[in-house]
């Protein structure tokens, strides 16, 4: 993306204006989901956009806790941008500041976040230079103004301005710098105005021991430990999806039938041959109102403006919203009275989980075998969420696509079993797709042996002294007791349950027999471990059939669910203790454990295992942009060919990492003002010819390299959707594939996977140049091909989500027109209502209606957490999670903590005598 390409100028200016004028009109931490307009319509009202960058659950614990970097922590709006300052000396914090310019009369308005109310000193570090102006700095909420002259004959730091003893409320604080003039010695910037530079702003808490920086919890008014019994009060705003509307009365039965008679029944009647859906009351009396699947379908299609179809009589907005609300409420009523959730089936661990579990059980220093699916290979450990700080630079390689980054073998002779494939539209941890075959059992039997007997094992294992070394010689009985104790302790951790005597005896007998045969304590104990690693009680995540009325899971079972969810591994000692003594059954304890686990580096599994699958990043492995059309995607080193995808793939994963580490809003996955990129990846986005004039050989780095956090000022960049990784893997070799992209957005971002295509699919030329030679754009060509209404209805939903990305070519680079010069039409609408002209407006639409993405993300995460497909019966659970997530403005930990607290996670499904609904 070169700087002189078209921006959407009007929109950017408008946005800037609105942010400049009234960011505080809509306090981002308000309790209620943003209302979407006066009449409850999903109108595009820019003032409702919340700056999700303000959400941050964890502040950096690195001694700079109160420091807000101008270039990182302030919204870069309008003419604000980041300027690297290393050329002027090392004294600028984070080596950069926020730079702004304007003419006299303009002002730079922004805000910073105060996490908890209190008495603060506010220190402000500005920059001085020859073309900087005189500013009136105001903090309106504190009624403070200060005039500051930023002129100096050289570029240097200004004396720190300290505002003492300010009483600040929690939430965003507006700060404004009005350009009121300039020093007589100052020269003008670009012959018109003057600049200012803000390095950082630091808060020092005065009314509390300042050695312990306040841990921010921007949702303090939200109870941290939701109680599972608060089901009823949750229902009040029925469904956040539709609750964006102004409060409407629900319809009574008569009104309902008036609605269906007017708008539905012409097609959906008893005699219709076109559809089986029928809104007449049939003679057998089983009304559609008692069919939850149909209720949901009707509600969704009505809410999304899919029904009534174009050309039929349309309800007014109010009528539509009232009916949607009514259907939602009927659905909740039904679901509340019918236990219909599908149970989480027993399943074996995936290969990824098995590796982590063995690693943690035996306190190994690292993985047991190479896992190409563990994409990020960190060369210096960086994922430390306890610091609350995502580092500015991260040294990392790509195991999945960087073939040289996969360890050949970690322990000699230890080979992984086959990778587990993802379910369609889901994850690879579903019980019904995780089987054990004789071949897998052979692998497990072999694995256990090969791990403990590998030559590197003793140095790799942290239990060498406590488990494997032979105890002090004692009398036989005491020796046996020591052996049993060690075995019992190990079994409890491995099987995540209380171990009964027969089991201990059995394993001890095995130990004795091995000991007698080998006469080596160490070897015999290793053989015991080898057996454990193949035992069904280790490899299966099993829950006892629950006979209690409540169906509450046992402490051990919750502990296992939790550790598998967050760490893709088994519980650690602390969690196991809470399971053993039963305290984990207390929701508050469970929440504390969840939070503790979320600052453990082991939750990196949520990026490596969840995010990679959720984003379907594996598809980048086999993306093959045409070699001649996109030569720069390839680099030849020796006789090996490499794809640039190996660098692209890192970017969305590091964004996800940073959101987790700082506990930011998941909405940054839609639109972020920063991204982690290598220099080469930055060049890919910004340079006409990426990497300059490099030859095919050694064109780009394929090893580990430095990804630095870069401020993005152009909203066409940022978030996962427009990342080069996504754009490349959803393209075919010679052109973009809007339908693939649309289906990706529908599935990943909105969790509304389109139905499979019909059996007859008309072909489309595979090369956009071929299409354009006939004077048509790809969009026009695709439209030509959806003549039948059957195709058109579905594609009307999918295609706009792909066409809005047409400005990104098949390898993710921005283009303002097709190579033939034909114009790109990226306009469209979402759910029949939210119109957008380009990608920035599309992102705005998603930001204005965070409930769509937050719902989808919560559903994906819940499905991952439960290891099963969600059904209709999970909707109330999802609604509760969604409401709390909306309240916290998408804070990452909120999603996780709410999932853990949910009924679905903590209780077993009562499937006795219930029917399953899909």
């Amino acid at each position, binding site marked *: 993306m070169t700087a002189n390409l078209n921006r959407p100028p009007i929109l950017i200016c408008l946005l800037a204006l609105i942010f400049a004028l009234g960011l505080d009109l809509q306090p981002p931490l308000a309790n209620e989901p943003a209302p979407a307009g006066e009449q409850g319509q999903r109108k595009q009202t820019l003032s409702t956009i919340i700056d999700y960058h303000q959400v941050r659950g964890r502040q950096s614990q690195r001694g700079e806790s109160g420091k807000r970097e101008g270039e990182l922590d302030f919204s870069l709006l309008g003419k604000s941008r980041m300027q690297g300052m290393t050329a002027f000396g090392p004294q600028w914090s984070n080596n950069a500041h926020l730079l702004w310019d304007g003419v006299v009369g303009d002002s730079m308005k922004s805000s910073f976040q105060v996490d908890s109310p209190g008495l603060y000193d506010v220190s402000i570090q500005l920059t001085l230079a020859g073309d900087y102006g005189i500013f009136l700095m105001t903090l309106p909420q504190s009624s403070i103004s200060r005039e500051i002259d930023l002129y100096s004959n050289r570029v240097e730091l200004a004396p720190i301005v300290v505002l003492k003893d300010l009483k600040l409320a929690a939430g965003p604080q507006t700060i404004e710098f009005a350009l009121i003039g300039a020093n007589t010695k100052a020269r003008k910037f670009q012959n018109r105005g003057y600049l200012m530079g803000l390095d950082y702003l630091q808060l020092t808490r005065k009314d509390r021991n300042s050695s312990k920086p306040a841990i921010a919890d921007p949702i303090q008014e939200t109870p941290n430990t939701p109680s599972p019994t608060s089901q009823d009060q949750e229902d009040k705003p029925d469904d956040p999806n539709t609750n964006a509307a102004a409060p409407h009365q629900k319809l009574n039965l008569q009104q309902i039938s008036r609605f269906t008679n007017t708008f539905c029944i012409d097609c959906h009647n008893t005699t219709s041959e076109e559809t089986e859906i029928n809104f007449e009351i049939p003679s057998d009396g089983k009304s559609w109102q008692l069919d939850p699947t149909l209720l949901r379908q009707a509600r969704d299609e009505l809410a999304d403006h899919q029904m009534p179809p174009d050309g039929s009589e349309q309800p007014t907005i109010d009528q539509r919203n009232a009916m949607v609300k009514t259907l939602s409420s009927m659905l909740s009523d039904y679901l509340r009275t019918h236990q219909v959730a599908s149970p989480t089936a027993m399943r074996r661990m995936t290969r990824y989980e098995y590796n982590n579990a063995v690693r943690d059980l035996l306190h190994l220093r690292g993985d047991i075998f190479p896992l190409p699916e563990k994409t990020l290979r960190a060369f210096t450990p960086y994922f430390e969420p306890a610091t609350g700080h995502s580092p500015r630079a991260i040294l990392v390689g790509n195991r999945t696509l960087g073939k040289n980054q996969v360890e050949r073998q970690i322990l000699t002779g230890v080979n992984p079993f086959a990778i587990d494939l993802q379910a369609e539209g889901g994850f690879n941890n579903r019980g019904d797709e995780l089987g054990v*075959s*004789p071949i897998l059992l052979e692998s497990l039997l072999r694995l256990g042996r090969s791990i403990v007997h590998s030559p590197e094992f003793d140095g790799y294992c942290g239990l060498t002294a406590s488990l494997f070394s032979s105890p002090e010689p004692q009398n036989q009985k005491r020796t046996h007791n020591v052996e049993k104790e060690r075995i019992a302790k190990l079994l409890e951790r491995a099987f995540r349950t209380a171990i009964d005597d027969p089991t201990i005896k059995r394993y001890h007998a095995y130990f004795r027999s091995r000991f007698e045969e080998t006469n080596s304590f160490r070897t015999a104990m290793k053989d015991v471990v080898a057996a454990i690693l*193949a035992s069904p009680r280790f490899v299966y995540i099993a829950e006892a059939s629950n006979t209690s009325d409540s169906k509450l899971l046992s402490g051990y079972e919750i502990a296992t669910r939790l550790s598998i969810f967050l760490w893709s591994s088994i519980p650690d000692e602390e969690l196991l203790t809470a399971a053993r003594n039963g305290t984990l059954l207390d929701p508050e304890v469970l929440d504390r454990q969840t939070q503790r686990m979320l600052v453990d580096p082991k939750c990196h599994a949520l990026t490596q295992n969840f995010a990679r699958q959720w984003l379907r990043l594996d598809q980048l492995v086999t993306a093959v942009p045409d070699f001649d059309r996109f030569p720069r995607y390839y680099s030849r080193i020796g006789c090996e060919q490499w794809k640039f995808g190996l660098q692209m793939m890192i970017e969305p994963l590091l964004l996800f990492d940073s959101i987790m580490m700082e506990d930011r809003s998941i909405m940054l996955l839609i639109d972020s003002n920063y991204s982690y990129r290598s220099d080469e990846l930055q060049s890919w986005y910004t340079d006409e010819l990426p990497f300059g004039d490099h030859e095919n050989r050694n064109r780009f780095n394929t090893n580990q390299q430095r990804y630095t956090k870069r401020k993005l000022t152009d909203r066409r960049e940022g978030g996962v959707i427009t990342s080069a990784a996504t754009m490349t893997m959803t393209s075919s070799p010679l052109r973009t594939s809007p339908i693939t992209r649309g289906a990706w957005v529908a599935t990943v971002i909105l969790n509304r996977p389109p139905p499979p295509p019909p059996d007859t699919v008309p072909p489309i030329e*595979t090369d956009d140049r071929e299409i354009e030679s006939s004077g048509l754009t790809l969009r026009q060509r695709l439209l030509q091909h959806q003549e039948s209404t059957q195709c058109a209805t579905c594609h009307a939903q999918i295609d706009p989500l792909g066409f809005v990305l047409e400005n990104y070519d098949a390898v993710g680079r921005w283009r303002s027109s097709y190579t033939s010069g034909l114009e790109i039409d990226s306009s469209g609408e979402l759910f029949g209502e939210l119109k957008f002209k380009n990608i920035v407006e599309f992102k705005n639409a998603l930001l204005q209606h965070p409930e769509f993405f937050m719902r989808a993300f919560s559903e994906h995460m819940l499905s991952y957490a439960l290891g099963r497909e969600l059904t209709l019966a999970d909707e109330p659970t999802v609604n509760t999670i969604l409401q709390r997530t909306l309240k916290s403005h998408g804070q990452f930990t909120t999603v996780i903590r709410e999932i853990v607290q949910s009924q679905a996670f903590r209780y077993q499904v009562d499937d006795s005598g219930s029917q399953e609904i899909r």
Partner: protein
Amino acid sequence: MRKHKLARRSVLRGSGVAIALPLLEAMHRSTPTEAATQPVAPRRVAFFYIPNGVVQTAWNLAEVGKDYKLSPTLKPIESVREHMLVVSNLDRIKVAGTDGHAQASTCWLSSAAPDELSPAGYPLKRTIDQIIADKTGLETSFRSLELSCNPYEDNRESIYFDNISWFGHGHVARSLRDPADVFNRLFRVEEHVNSSSVLDLVMEDARSLRPRLSTLDRHKLSEYTDAVRTVERQITRVRRRQDDIAKLNPTTPIKPWQAMRRDEFIQVMGDLMILALQSDLTRVATLMTGPERWGSPLNVEGWFDKPIQHHSWTHGQHNESIRKQLEKLDLFHLEQFASLVKKMQAIKEGDDTLLDNTAFLLGSGLSSGEHHVCNNLPTVIAGRCGGAIQTGQHVRYSEGTPIANLWQSLAQAMGVEQKSLGDSTGLINEIS
């Protein structure tokens, strides 16, 4: 493809697998359960799967009987046509609700009737290879062998696209993709033997787990206990055969499969399969040349300059230039099949050959990928399966004849009597 005999010490093509092949006739004679009147050599069955259907116009044969003219795609079987039975008009009924491709691979060998849906929506029950292996597997070291030449390292599709052999719904007989793994499994006797000591222990763990589980989960656990029993038997038999295996004197394949050409990969897998059948380590095998759909491009060296797009080509085949490419790809698969057939033919078993004692079947779960059609599934059977199959002809059945008839007939030829199977309506006359 030139006909060649396997030398006593022959090198599996390109793989670096060097194996000395002793005559295994003694073993065949000693198979204790075969009655005296039966042929000495055991009967075997193997399935060669091609994904995404074929170009029907280039596949279909005009004439029936012995003197049919080979169609362009079937040209590669010319020299061995007397050992081939080509069958037209066999059908599978596609059911709505699951992906056409996932269903094609998953349900091709299924013993379920179309209206017999599993919870996942597939008419999926124990597949015919596993039903046969239930019997033949009692006599061999390995009950069955599942192989796949799926070359993709991305996880684009689910297990349903990548497997044709199933123990039952939700219980996949997952295929091995790495020739080195296949090799180790077949020939590393010590690995099997070393695993035996913990089997009692883990089985006891399974037993202690069982009473606490729900019915559904008990069913899941039986996958594990079944596997333990299979592995137990396997170890006993492998141990019994260890002298034979030692005589084979195999060495590990050196070349990683990732470095193999496409044809080389298929042939190496095929060679391992033949070796296992020939040495009676198993009598049932399935070999997928590739997974269904999996829209990732693939190099077919020496045949196509650019990576091929098998799946998307099938949908564009009414465009002539795309169809020609697709026909070439079908031809490539037939060449690979024919090459393996000739290798089997070159292996003597007494007066007969391995091919004579085997039914080696090529097929696909779709007839054409263009519209996901399942009528007239491409089907060729090589070998007489110990005299059970009347080869050397093309037979056209009446439209709508279920392919389950063929599976039932093959099961019968392998000594497994089934009253009916899935939606079968009878037997295939050419198989007895």
